[in-house]
């Protein structure tokens, strides 16, 4: 198949020394920032964007691939050693992994998470390589009405089905959509909702929004209720991995990958459902059921693999349809747009070199992470011990750096501050953050496609559901709604079973992934 040639070309680009250096810097920075407590992958990518502003696109995206995987990876170290899942998809890792660390088996937990992430990341990247070009070919044939259907799916599932409170999820989504309306209407050239402020004439930048709502909002929220006193970091104890650990881990790795990639790749995906499913599955299949809740290695291996596989899966709708299904993906889209590149079906045709270099560097970054991380775990432990005043001051310093350097004007910082205060309020009152970020980036896409579809049909709204693809999508959405409710009940039961044996406090509500 022709794609193999493109992939080899991609490796040709990604294996050049300078590309390898970018990948290495990316995975190192991504892990270092991702490992910091309270920083999930979306914030990692948003905070590190300024690093790539002046790179040429291929180099920038190779670095991004590294930051993205590195951020995912760093999060699992944090949840094992600190019991602070930086995102909801790591809750399960924290559940069993932290218990293992407490029992003096921290090294084994880190190893199974690391190798599991590598195995799952590689399998899922192979999946991405195989699926994405085919899907892009199909996606070229989709009309605007079909895109409307896909955006509806992405928006609704992200805000309503994954949240712990549907009404607050929808409120968060609507706030994001409103922020997406601000700026100049592309079709009529007039300003909407800019309040007459020149700084808003170009709209609210996704990067400013993400940095504001994640970094500034988080810092304000922590500052208002900071816990004083020393930080408890688990020691990395025990053997790295025994033969028994390996034989208990490899099946969960594979099963976790098999769950994570397809679910992550759906327009309605996400990383959280597959991790919960993987945990439930491993618990049922394990011969050591009694260990679950006390540090079962299968309970780290499976969910961690599912988490990483879904991270690669999320790239499928992102690259082929231009649809972000996680907050991290929304920030990545913003990064693409910064280079004037629009992810979507034409990406593989128009920017083939770049995309294939990106995909190739995912393989390479994954390998780097495996090689780098286990020996360097002592360094990550040190990062976890940074005194909190300096940690949050540093996060805000990088936030204003990102806010300023985007356009080089200080007025943007007022917008950043305002969004930060919004982020504080949303955390305080339990509104999930991710739907707002996704709404901000999907809103303008949805509006444009809707107006285009209705222009084609000369105003007849029937076009929105009569296309076979769109009709099928709406039917599937209804089916998925039912299925998700059932799955949630199951995963909640798993969660409750774990509750019975002294669970760590999951960070925030389940929907508040990817902070």
């Amino acid at each position: 198949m022709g794609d193999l040639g493109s992939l080899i070309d991609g490796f040709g680009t990604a294996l050049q020394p300078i590309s390898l250096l970018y990948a290495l810097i990316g995975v190192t920075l991504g892990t270092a920032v991702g490992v910091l407590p309270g920083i999930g992958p979306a914030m990692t990518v948003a905070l590190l964007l300024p690093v790539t502003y002046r790179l040429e696109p291929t180099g920038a995206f190779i670095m991004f691939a590294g930051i993205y995987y590195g951020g995912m990876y760093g999060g699992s170290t944090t949840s094992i050693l600190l019991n602070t899942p930086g995102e909801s998809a790591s809750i399960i890792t924290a559940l069993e992994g932290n218990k293992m660390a407490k029992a003096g088996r921290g090294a084994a937990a880190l190893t199974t998470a690391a190798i599991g992430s590598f195995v799952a990341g590689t399998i899922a990247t192979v999946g991405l390589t195989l699926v994405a070009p085919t899907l892009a070919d199909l996606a070229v044939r989709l009309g605007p009405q079909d895109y409307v259907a896909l955006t509806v799916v992405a928006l609704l599932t992200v805000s309503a089905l994954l949240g712990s409170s549907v009404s607050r999820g929808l409120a968060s989504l609507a706030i994001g959509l409103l922020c997406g309306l601000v700026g100049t209407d592309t079709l009529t050239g007039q300003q909407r909702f800019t309040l007459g402020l020149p700084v808003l004439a170009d709209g609210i930048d996704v990067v400013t929004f993400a940095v504001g709502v994640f970094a500034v909002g988080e810092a304000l929220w922590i500052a208002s209720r900071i816990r004083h006193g020393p930080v408890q970091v688990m020691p990395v104890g025990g053997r790295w991995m025994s033969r028994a650990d390996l034989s208990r881990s490899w099946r969960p790795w594979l099963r976790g990958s098999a769950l994570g990639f397809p679910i992550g790749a759906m327009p309605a995906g996400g990383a959280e459902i597959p991790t919960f499913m993987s945990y439930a599955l491993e618990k049922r299949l394990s011969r050591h059921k009694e260990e679950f809740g006390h540090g079962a290695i299968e309970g780290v291996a499976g969910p961690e693999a599912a988490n990483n596989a879904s991270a690669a899966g999320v790239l499928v709708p992102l690259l082929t349809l231009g649809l972000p299904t996680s907050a991290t993906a929304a920030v990545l889209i913003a990064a693409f747009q910064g280079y004037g590149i629009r992810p979507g079906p034409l990406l593989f045709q128009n920017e083939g070199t770049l995309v294939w270099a990106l995909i190739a560097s995912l393989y390479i970054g994954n390998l780097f992470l495996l090689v780098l991380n286990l020996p360097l775990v002592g360094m990550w432990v040190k990062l976890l011990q940074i005194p909190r005043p300096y940690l949050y001051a540093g996060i805000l310093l990088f936030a204003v750096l990102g806010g300023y350097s985007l356009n080089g004007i200080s007025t943007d910082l007022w917008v950043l501050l305002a969004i930060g205060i919004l982020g504080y309020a949303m955390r305080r009152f339990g509104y999930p953050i991710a739907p707002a970020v996704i709404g901000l980036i999907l809103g303008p896409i949805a509006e444009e496609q809707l107006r285009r579809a209705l222009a084609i049909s000369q105003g007849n709204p029937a076009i929105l559901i009569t296309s076979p693809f769109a009709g099928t999508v709406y039917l599937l959405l209804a089916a998925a709604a039912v299925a998700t409710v059932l799955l949630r009940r199951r995963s909640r039961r798993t969660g409750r079973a774990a509750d019975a044996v002294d669970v760590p406090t999951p960070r925030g509500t389940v929907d508040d992934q990817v902070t």
Partner: protein
Amino acid sequence: MTELPARSAAAGKARIPVPELLMALGVAALGVLTLLGATTITVPLSANVVGPRVFPYAVGTALVGAGVAVVVALVHGRLGQPEGGEDLDLTARADWSTVGKILAGFVAHILLVDRLGWALAGALLFAVIAWALGASWWKATIIGVVLGLVIQAAFVSGLGVTLPAGLLDRVDLLNG
């Protein structure tokens, strides 16, 4: 859909926390403003049925609907669950003096960044925040100055990002 049962049981119908109610009403009010704002958008004659107003109307309606839904949830005692975390003490009362200091530091940074330069304004921001959160002020200042200078030098000279040099504009390393 799944607000914590324990909290909803504890919070009877009588006690709806005012700030939370205000947030929900604020969402709804934002929706009303969006709907009003949408009526002022000019629709060109050439536009087809779906002009520049339709999507704002939909968003405004969604805001009003979601805001009202949260109010209804609150009335039924289903409170929002504040985001938890390892560094948080959710039992404590909000510490407004710390938040106030941080906001003041942030505003000072915005006002001064073009005059002082990014490195010094960044050092100020870092020092104020670390001090507000409990670090000793002189240590925070030293670390802040070092970080500010190193970051600016790295981004300007190493990565080619433009940042204002301000007072230090004679230093080549900081002035791209």
